[in-house]
C-alpha cells in the first residue's frame, strides 16, 4: 500500500512539475522588449513589397506619409509564434479633413499571400473629429510546415500594409503618421506539426548555389538578413517532447503501481523465506 501511495505522490508531483512547464517550456521565446536606442525600429516605411521597411517583433516602426500612400513593413515570424500586428494612425488635423476615413491593415506572408486575421479590428472608420485610430490583426499561429495547397502561415517574412481605403477625395495627400508594432505570443507545441521547410518563406530565399556563393563571399543571404534576432529555429523542438516523455514516465510508474497492487504489500506471507 505504501508503494501505491508513493507512486500516486510521484505522479502528482510529476504532473505538478509538468503543469507549469508545459506552457512555459518556450516561455522565454517572446521577444525581449526594446531596450536601447539601437533597438528602435525604422522611421520610414516602404511603399511596395520590394521596398518594405524591416523591423523585428518588439520594435516599433514609425513613418510619416501622406494619406493615400500605401505603407509597407516586413517582420519575421517563426514556428510556433502567433504574431499580433498593431497599428496606430495619427490622423491629419481634423480641421483639414472633410469626412470620415476608413483605414485598413493587411498582412501578407513571404509569398505575398494575404493572411487572414483571427481577431482584431483590421479595418476601422475614423470620424471626422477623431485624432487617432488603432488597428490590430492577430494572425494564425505559424506552423513548421503545411501542404502545398494550404494557405497556412509558415515561418518567414510577413508584410504589413497600412493604407486608407475610403475617404473624401479632397482629403488625399494630407500628412499623417503611423506607428506599427508586432507582439509575438508563443503557442507552444499545440501547433507543432511534422515536417519543415528547407528555407523559411523569405523572398529571394534559395538553398541552391547562390547561397553557397554568398557564404563564400561572406555576404548575408536573404534568409539570414530576414531572420529574427536569434536566427530561425529548426522547428524540431516543441513541448511535445516534454509531454510525451512525462507520459512515458507516468505510464512506467503506473505500470509498477499496477504490478504492485497484484502482489499486495511486501512478500506474500505464504511464501517462506528462501533459506
Amino acid at each position, binding site marked *: 500500500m505504501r508503494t501505491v501511495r508513493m507512486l500516486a505522490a510521484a505522479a502528482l508531483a510529476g*504532473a505538478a512539475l509538468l503543469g507549469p512547464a508545459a506552457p512555459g517550456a518556450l516561455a522565454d521565446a517572446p521577444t525581449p522588449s526594446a531596450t536601447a536606442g539601437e533597438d528602435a525600429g525604422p522611421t520610414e516605411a516602404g*511603399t511596395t513589397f520590394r*521596398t518594405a521597411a524591416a523591423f523585428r517583433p518588439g520594435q516599433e516602426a514609425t513613418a510619416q506619409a501622406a494619406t493615400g500612400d500605401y505603407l509597407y513593413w516586413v517582420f519575421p515570424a517563426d514556428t510556433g509564434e502567433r504574431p499580433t500586428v498593431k497599428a496606430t494612425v495619427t490622423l491629419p488635423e481634423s480641421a483639414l479633413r472633410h469626412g470620415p476615413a476608413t483605414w485598413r491593415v493587411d498582412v501578407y506572408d513571404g*509569398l505575398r499571400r494575404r493572411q487572414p486575421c483571427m481577431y482584431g479590428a483590421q479595418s476601422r472608420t475614423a470620424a471626422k473629429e477623431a485624432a487617432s485610430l488603432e488597428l490590430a490583426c492577430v494572425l494564425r499561429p505559424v506552423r513548421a510546415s503545411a501542404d502545398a495547397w494550404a494557405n497556412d502561415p509558415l515561418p518567414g517574412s510577413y508584410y504589413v500594409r497600412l493604407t486608407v481605403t475610403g475617404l473624401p477625395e479632397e482629403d488625399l495627400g494630407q500628412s499623417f503618421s503611423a506607428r506599427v508594432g508586432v507582439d509575438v505570443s508563443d503557442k507552444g*507545441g499545440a501547433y507543432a506539426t511534422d515536417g519543415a*521547410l528547407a528555407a523559411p518563406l523569405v523572398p529571394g530565399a534559395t538553398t541552391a548555389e547562390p547561397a553557397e556563393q554568398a557564404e563564400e563571399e561572406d555576404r548575408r543571404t536573404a534568409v539570414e538578413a530576414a531572420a529574427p534576432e536569434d536566427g530561425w529555429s529548426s522547428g524540431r523542438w516543441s513541448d511535445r517532447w516534454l509531454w510525451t516523455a512525462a507520459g512515458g514516465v507516468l505510464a512506467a510508474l503506473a*505500470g509498477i503501481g*499496477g504490478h504492485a497492487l*497484484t502482489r499486495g504489500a511486501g512478500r506474500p506471507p505464504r511464501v517462506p523465506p528462501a533459506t
Partner: protein
Amino acid sequence: MITRKRLATGVCALLVALTAALLPASASADGPAAKESPKVELVLDVSGSMRAKDIDGKSRMSAAKQAFNEVLDAVPEEVRLGIRTLGADYPGNDRKRGCKDTRQLYPVGPLDRTEAKAAVATLAPTGWTPIGPALLGAADDLGEDGATKRIVLITDGEDTCAPLDPCQVAREIAAKGIHLVIDTLGLVPDAKTRQQLTCIAEATGGTYTSVHRTDELSRRVRQLVDRAADPVVTPVATEGAGRCADAPRLTPGLYTDREAFGEHRWYKVDLLPGQELRASVSVSADRAVNDDYGVLLRAVTRHGREIVRGSEAGDGRTDVISTGLRYPKPEAQDADGDDKPAAETVCLQVSNSFSAPPAVKTTPGMPIELTVDVVDGPASASDVASFGLGRGWWLLGALVLAGFLAGLIWGWLSRWRVAVWRTH
C-alpha cells in the same frame, strides 16, 4: 555561434563602410561604376499661378525656393540630382509656345549645391503649365540605364496643354520599363489638380501629397529624395507569352512584365525533383479600375494539368493585388543515382480579373511583378504532429491507464505462473 555571426556582421559592416568610403573616388575614376547610383529629377512648376501668396503668408514660389534650398542641403551623397522647370521662360499668350516651355535647369549628375541653389534663385513665376512635356523631358534627362529613377513633380495647377494627357504620358514612361517612379506634390491643389496628380502618381507607383505649408513641402521632398537613395532590388523585364510552349524560361529572380485586362501570360520554370518552386505575383492597379478585381497564379504541367494555384480577390481602393504558390516536387522514386534526374518544366500562368470604366485606356497593360525562387524541398511529414509526438492531459491519462493496466496484467500473470509452478 552567435559571437561568430556577430563578428561576421561586424566584418561585413566594416567592408561596407570601406567600400562606401572608396566609392566616390572610383566613381569619378570610371563612369560605369556609378551606374547604379540612383537618379532624381525635381520638376518645378514656375507658372504664373505660383505668385499666389497662400503658403504661410508667402508666395508659392518662395515656399518652393525655400524648400529647395533645404532639400539641396540634405541630398544624400550618392544621389544624382537634376532640376527641370516648366513654364519658367515664356510669359506670352501663344499656347503653342507656352506648351513647349520646359527646360533643364540643372543637369542630372553629382550635385554642386551652390551652383544648384544659385540656379533655383533665378526663377520667377512666369508662364504656362506644360506638365506632360515636362515629364517627357525629365524622363529623357534621367536616361535609360539600370539605375533607379524618381521624378518629383511640384506643381500648383493642372496641365494647361491638352490634348497631351500627362497621366497617359506618365503611364507610357513607366511602361518603358526603366524603373521610374513619379511622385507628385500639389501646392494648395484644387479638385482638378488633385485628380490629375493622383492619376500621375498612381500610374507609376508613386505617391501624391497635397501641400499647404513650407515645412511640409521640404520635409516631403527630402523624404522622397531619401527614398530614392534606398537600395532596392531592381526587377528584370521579361515578356510572358500567350501559351506555355512559347513562354520565356525564368531562373530564380525578380521580374516585371505588363498584362492587359483579362490577358493571360505564361512563363516557364525548370524544377528538379526534390526542389520546391516558390512563385508570387503582384498586379498593380496603375489606373482607375472598377471596384472588384482579382488575380490568379497557376502552376501547370506541360501537358496542361494544374498542380497548384494561388488566387486572391479584393474590392475597393488598392495599389496591388498579389498572390503566390509553393510547389514542392517530390524526390524521384527510382533512385538509380546514375543519371541526373530530368528537370520538370513548370508553366506559370498569370491572369487577372481587373476591369476598368470605359473611359480608361487599356494600353499599355498593368505592371506585374513576378518573383521566382527555387529552394530545396521541405522535409516530408509522416504525421500531422511533430515527430508523431503527443501532448495534453488526455495523452497523459491514456498513457497512465495503459501503463497501469499493463502492470496489473503482468502482476496477475506472474502470480498465476507462480501458483501453477507451486502446484506442480
